[in-house]
């Protein structure tokens, strides 16, 4: 699955901000037709994003997505019909509450892909839960559609719907966050967290990103390019994690070769969770284009520093 550590929102009616959107290093960009565009500009924004998608090059490694308006609004349907093109990689559906909300988009998407002669199913979907009802339906929604590759939460609207308050410890949406990641992983898709709106507070961003990473989230949305580096630092495996994972993998491969049922690394037993974790670390490192050292080079390095593994 794709690396989606960072997802940068780009206001959809702002011509100046669209061409450079792919230059900041974000894994995903979301050209926004929804909350950052006021109703009288929805048509302007839709046409602007649609035209931009035809000619602007966002870079080979960037996932180009659009956050459309909900289908329940007068705009959503026209958004989809207008923006579907070969450069579009994904669509984010806001305010999802039921499987219907996703499946209707899926159908319309298929219709447009057919109409425009594009590969059916190439454009992926992402659902955002912003209400209590949506969160509680996350389990069903997460598994309802083949195109759905990730789910996210919209903290601002969700907190309002709950009647709660936003706070730096995120207590209001704590359970919602966990439910979303549970739903995502049960369905085998990704979970992406909401934005951290104070883009001057890098420490706060880092803390929050570390927390959600520990929960199992795969990425985080951002509203300002300066946030991307911090988010990537948190999500990227460290050199130590990578080296350890290489050693684990080697131990597993060695054990297989010798037909040994018991796998050990030094004094520690390698059981399934550790093995899975190592695989994920290496997959993330590889996707992030971080060089993975060979087992031999790690062995050499350790022998030099402490005299033995």
């Amino acid at each position, binding site marked *: 699955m794709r690396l989606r550590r960072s997802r940068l929102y780009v206001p959809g009616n702002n011509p100046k901000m669209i*061409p*450079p959107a792919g*230059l*900041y*290093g974000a894994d995903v960009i979301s050209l926004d037709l929804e909350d950052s565009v006021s109703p009288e500009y929805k048509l302007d924004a839709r046409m602007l994003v649609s035209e931009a998608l035809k*000619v*602007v*090059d966002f*870079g*080979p*490694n960037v996932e180009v997505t659009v956050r459309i308006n909900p289908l329940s609004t007068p705009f959503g349907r026209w958004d989809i019909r207008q923006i579907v093109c070969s450069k579009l990689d994904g669509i984010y559906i806001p305010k999802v509450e039921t499987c219907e909300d996703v499946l209707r988009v899926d159908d319309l998407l298929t219709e447009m892909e057919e109409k425009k002669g594009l590969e059916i199913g190439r454009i992926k979907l992402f659902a955002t839960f912003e209400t209590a009802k949506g969160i509680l339906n996350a389990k069903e929604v997460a598994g309802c559609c083949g195109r759905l590759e990730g789910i996210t939460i919209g903290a601002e609207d969700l907190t309002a719907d709950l009647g709660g308050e936003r706070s730096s410890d995120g207590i209001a949406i704590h359970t919602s966050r966990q439910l979303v990641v549970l739903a995502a992983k049960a369905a085998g898709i990704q979970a992406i967290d909401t934005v951290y709106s104070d883009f001057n507070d890098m420490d706060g961003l880092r803390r929050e990103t570390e927390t959600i990473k520990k929960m199992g989230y795969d990425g985080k949305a951002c509203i300002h*390019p300066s946030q991307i580096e911090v988010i990537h630092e948190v999500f990227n495996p460290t050199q130590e994690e990578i080296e350890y994972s290489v050693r684990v993998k080697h131990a597993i491969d060695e054990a297989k070769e010798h037909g040994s049922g018991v796998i050990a690394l030094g004094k520690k037993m390698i059981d399934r969770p550790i093995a899975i974790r190592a695989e994920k670390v290496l997959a993330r490192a590889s996707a992030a*284009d971080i*060089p993975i050292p060979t087992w031999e080079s790690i062995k050499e390095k350790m022998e030099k520093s402490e005299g033995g593994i």
Partner: protein
Amino acid sequence: MNELEWVVNGIGRKVPKSIDGKELIPYSGPFSHSPVKDHKYGPILGYVADQKSEIVSTLFEAIQKVGLKDGMTISFHHHFRNGDMVMNMVIDELEKEGFKDLTLAPSSTFPCQEETIIRAIKGGVIRKVEGGSARGEFGRLVSSGKYLDSPMVIRSHGGRVRAIEAGDIHIDVAFIGAPCADELGNLNALNGPSACGTINFSYADARFADHVIAITDNLVEYPAFPMSISQELVDYVVVVDKIGDPNKIASGELRITKSPTRLKIAKDAVRIADLLGYVKEGMNFQAGAGGISLAFTEFLHQLMKEKGITAHWAQGGTTRFLVDMLEDGTVKKLITGQAFDVAAIESMKENPKNHVDLPIGAYANIHGKGCTVNKLDIVVLGASEVDLGYNVNTATLSNGIIAEPVGGHSDTAAGAALTIITVPLFRGRYPVVVENCTTVVTPGETVDVVVTERGIAVNPRREDLLERLEEVRVPRDLRICTLEELQRMAYDITGTKVEPNWGDDIVALIEYRDGTIIDVVRSVLPRYYDDAVFVDDRNLFDIERREN
């Protein structure tokens, strides 16, 4: 001008065989043309007798004493950049005294001089311009084809020195703005309220002009050290109140660009130089003062510290970013062609053992016996356009108007082992990577890599670099592509490049560093919609092209 005979030169540009009776030599390659004459030109001799002072009380007196006449050639340096007051002062005086038909031969010109120069040209005081550059309104005037009878000759820094030494530019009177002078004419640029660090651009002028008049606002007791330009070359010294505006001469605080596009370009330029193997112990490089250049210097500094390597020497366009590298030992020695900020000037004063200045000829003249550009490992340069042949335009904008200097561009590109052009893919509605440059200043044979924010292209002539890229691990976010791909990407966004509305007259000759003609610039006609002539492109280059 339509009766001119044309010939196609070594990069496929049509250039005239002769102009105004003077034969021209077409460009045929970066290292194909050695000097025509085998001796340097020589100025007239002086006679100091037992004079103990060369101070005269007024500029007018100095002009009279050297016997300046109508039709002569006068020269200036541009070390005071947009804070210069010398050129205006002199031209105003010449205008007042009724001089006519002079040839102006500055090393470069700046916006603060435009009004004066334009007035002088329209009034017949100046009728020809040699070398240096033209920008802004002055550039527009040259491009209009009106007022100047013969084409302006545009040269690189090294090329200007070549021309002076060969006598192609015969300077009758060189006016040298000197931040520090003594009564016999020892000059330097390190001390005084208008200190600018170096007066290297006057070095050749001082040696080859028939007469040299120094203008200073800081007369010191004899002898003035250092003797950057020494007394045996200077005829007269004039003391005035102010020769420059210190705030515009040396910046107090040069800042790195904040533009994400430019930062990315600078970062990727460092990364590609590293990937290609040029960032290593003992390396050297040239720095500039434009927005991308400063960022490049800063990122290079960080990388070198990470790798624990040092550079033997570096050359600038010196700013505090380069000085920082000298002070923390990342760079061992610094050579300064021109100083851009106070830190650079202070460093030259405090650290002469490791930081020196160098005459421009020693920096870039190909018809000399050795120049530092030949020893350069890496140079990073800007451009207004780059075309599919890797040729570079820095003289005109895409609309054909003369707007920027050549500076040391073609000199460094020819000499450096790795020449990197750092440019955004497009500027506003102008594509920067184009099919054919409007004007060629630096030939593609001397350009190795083009770095834009959306991709990097390596000149196919450099098979060694392409091979190297096969061998190393190229990070996924460094996108190596062909220049054709970049050009298509640019045209997709901006539309096809609009060709200039060329007129018939030749308004400028682009002379390559060896004296051959690499391209010509024609006049530009007004568009038919209105009679206002030219696009307001003042901001097109903003902070990028501050050097030169």
